[in-house]
């Protein structure tokens, strides 16, 4: 069995009965290897469709999860259970639970970085005050707004007004957490929260893959929320200067907010400034200053001056990317897409109204960005297999469009690996309106392929 990867979370979906006899059969050696090489921030086992489990069955997965956590420093645990199952797990492992428990996948998603700019208000209760605080801090660091109930009675009262909250967090437990630098997105800026004493460990806790992904999909402003930083040493300084150098290639800006130099040598500030890092006292100094935000790149990609040109390597593989797109559409819809025209140009969208777009970056032996622009009806049709219902909201279509473009990225990766080309793909990004896409893409030159599908046109755009 392989984990299903959505965003930065991998989930094993088990079904039926789970005990010590059958649990090892769910995981072949290949499955274990594939799991260890997953590029995720969280790995979970869903118990939603498990009607019976015992400790021996869970132990098989706990062993794998622990191994992956030790290897990759990610969050691991179980999700999708009811109160009875939660109590059973607690009784099996007592107070020694060193993995996390999330009542639902929706709750787990609140504790990982996404490409989305969506702060959620959630109601939170845990009888253990230290768990309560840890969850509140993590949620806050990931950009959410936790409403913390201090007592069970307060929780029960607040719980009645479910409409006020995106999620109600109970029967949830954080195991080893805070191993990764918390990340959130505000507008077009990515905010990382760092704290305490920064040393060589920052290189392990900072999610460099996510950072590179964000650069590849067009983010240009990265802010380190450093209010809680006490001090840093030379190793951390080296890490940040290297980060600044790599960001410069994309014309991206790195800022520190709230960092004091009481216990950090003042000379470090000069070194960081020399590397291009900027310092601000408060977050509002950046986020509420629209002009500055635009100048720093947080207003989108329009200010990017340094364009990365199309190169021969990318053009040579164009057919693979188009094949991946057309065959994915064919697989998902049983209908054929046909190519109408192919031109090297900036992205040109004839009718920007009623269109959705999605993009996915890739890097490795070649790097670039695939952008797909669909009329809403085509987007919906393309995602029908994934959604399964005809009455769907725009948000559901956009979520599925992200999955759709992820499959295309995966197929392109497979096709290119046949030519011995190694490729990694970024998190997909979706756009509910073309204006937001154009902020990032309007000045980029690329290959635009106009395709038609069931009488309507859609655009494939490949750029760097």
């Amino acid at each position: 069995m392989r984990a299903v990867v959505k965003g930065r979370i991998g989930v094993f979906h088990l079904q039926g009965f789970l005990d010590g006899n059958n649990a090892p059969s769910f995981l072949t050696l290949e499955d274990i290897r594939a799991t260890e090489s997953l590029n995720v921030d969280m790995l979970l086992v869903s118990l939603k469709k498990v009607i019976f489990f015992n400790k021996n069955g869970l132990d098989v997965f706990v062993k794998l999860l622990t191994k992956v956590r030790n290897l990759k420093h990610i969050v691991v645990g179980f999700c999708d259970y009811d109160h009875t199952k939660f109590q059973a797990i607690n009784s099996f492992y007592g107070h020694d639970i060193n993995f996390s428990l999330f009542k639902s996948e929706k709750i787990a998603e609140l504790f990982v970085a996404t490409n989305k700019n969506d702060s959620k208000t959630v109601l939170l209760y845990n009888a253990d005050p230290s768990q309560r605080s840890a969850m509140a801090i993590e949620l806050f660091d990931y950009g959410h707004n936790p409403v913390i109930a201090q007592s069970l009675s307060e929780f029960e009262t607040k719980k009645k007004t479910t409409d006020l909250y995106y999620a109600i967090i109970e029967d949830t437990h954080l195991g080893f957490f805070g191993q990764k630098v918390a990340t959130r997105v505000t507008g077009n800026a990515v905010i990382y929260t760092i704290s305490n004493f920064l040393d060589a460990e920052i290189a392990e806790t900072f999610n460099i893959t996510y950072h590179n992904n964000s650069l590849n999909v067009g983010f240009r402003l990265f802010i380190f929320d450093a209010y809680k930083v006490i001090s840093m040493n030379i190793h951390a300084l080296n890490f940040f200067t290297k980060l600044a150098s790599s960001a410069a290639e994309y014309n991206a800006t790195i800022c520190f907010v709230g960092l004091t130099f009481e216990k950090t040598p003042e000379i470090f500030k000069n070194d960081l400034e020399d590397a291009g890092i900027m310092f601000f006292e408060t977050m509002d100094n950046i986020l509420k200053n629209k002009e500055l935000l635009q100048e720093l790149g947080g207003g989108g990609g329009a200010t990017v001056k340094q364009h990365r040109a199309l190169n021969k390597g990318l053009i040579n593989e164009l057919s693979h990317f188009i094949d991946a797109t057309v065959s994915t559409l064919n697989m998902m819809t049983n209908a054929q897409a046909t190519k109408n025209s192919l031109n090297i140009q900036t992205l040109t969208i004839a009718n920007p109204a009623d269109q959705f777009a999605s993009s996915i970056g890739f890097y490795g032996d070649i790097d670039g960005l695939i952008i797909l622009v669909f009329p809403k009806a085509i987007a919906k049709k393309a995602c029908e297999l994934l959604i399964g219902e005809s009455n769907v909201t725009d948000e559901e279509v956009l979520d599925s469009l992200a999955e759709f473009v992820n499959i295309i990225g995966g197929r392109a990766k497979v096709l290119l690996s046949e030519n011995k080309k190694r490729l990694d793909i970024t998190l997909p990004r979706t756009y509910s309106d073309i204006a937001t896409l154009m902020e990032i893409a309007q000045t980029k030159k690329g290959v635009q392929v106009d395709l038609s599908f069931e009488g309507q046109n859609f655009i494939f755009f490949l750029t760097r």
Partner: protein
Amino acid sequence: MITPEEVAFYIQNIPPTPSVVQQALAYAREGDLIKAAKYAQEDPALRLYLKTLLNRPIYGFKNEVSDVSQIFGILGVAATQQTLYHYLLSLLLPKKWELFALTNHQFYDLQASLGKRWETILDHLKIDDKEIHSAIALIPATIIVCEALFASKKKEVEQLRSIKALDYNTILKRLSGYDLFDLAAQIGQMWEMSEKTISLIRSASGVHNELFAEQKVLAQWIHLLLFYQFSQSTYVSAGLNEFIDFQIDFVQDIYDSFCQVVQ
């Protein structure tokens, strides 16, 4: 990936019931096991199948049972009918399993244990109806149909499943409008099974809401029995645990009774 035309083509190519089996089934339905055995005796493949099936460990016979009349006598009317359907299903087996890591012997084991456990369940439910008894025989047809339709699409399905937990049944339903249980029911229709049997097969997917009280209870038991079987190590390794969607809420209210009866 899979078009409605491909599904229709598959159904059209289901072989009809061989005349000997048809006759044996007709007599078994009437309760005349002697005449049924006489016809069954004429088909060497059926003879071998019956002998192999009855000597599987789940039946627990100390001595080899080889005579067809003896086999039918041991099985009784309902189980004979069920076994003849099992045999029919074996005619659809692939030469080589590609989608699922199964062997034909493991498939026969699955048929045998489903049949025996279904018998225990019907005893518990105090249901003595040979049509209902036979229904379980066609449930494994879902596995054969799935193998036939998806074997050449394994890579595509793997890619799809790497980003979304979709089972084969759901994929097929969304692409062609038919689910695997509908197709198993169509096979039942071609083999002239009773309407009661066919509708029970259809409802075993656990996704239909408009079921009569008895039909719902039986569908719940079949659905949970399937997942009990698919949770056995052999079938987990074969990939059967992931092939249809387990409707846990559909079976929740019979779970405790199931544990007492089956486990």
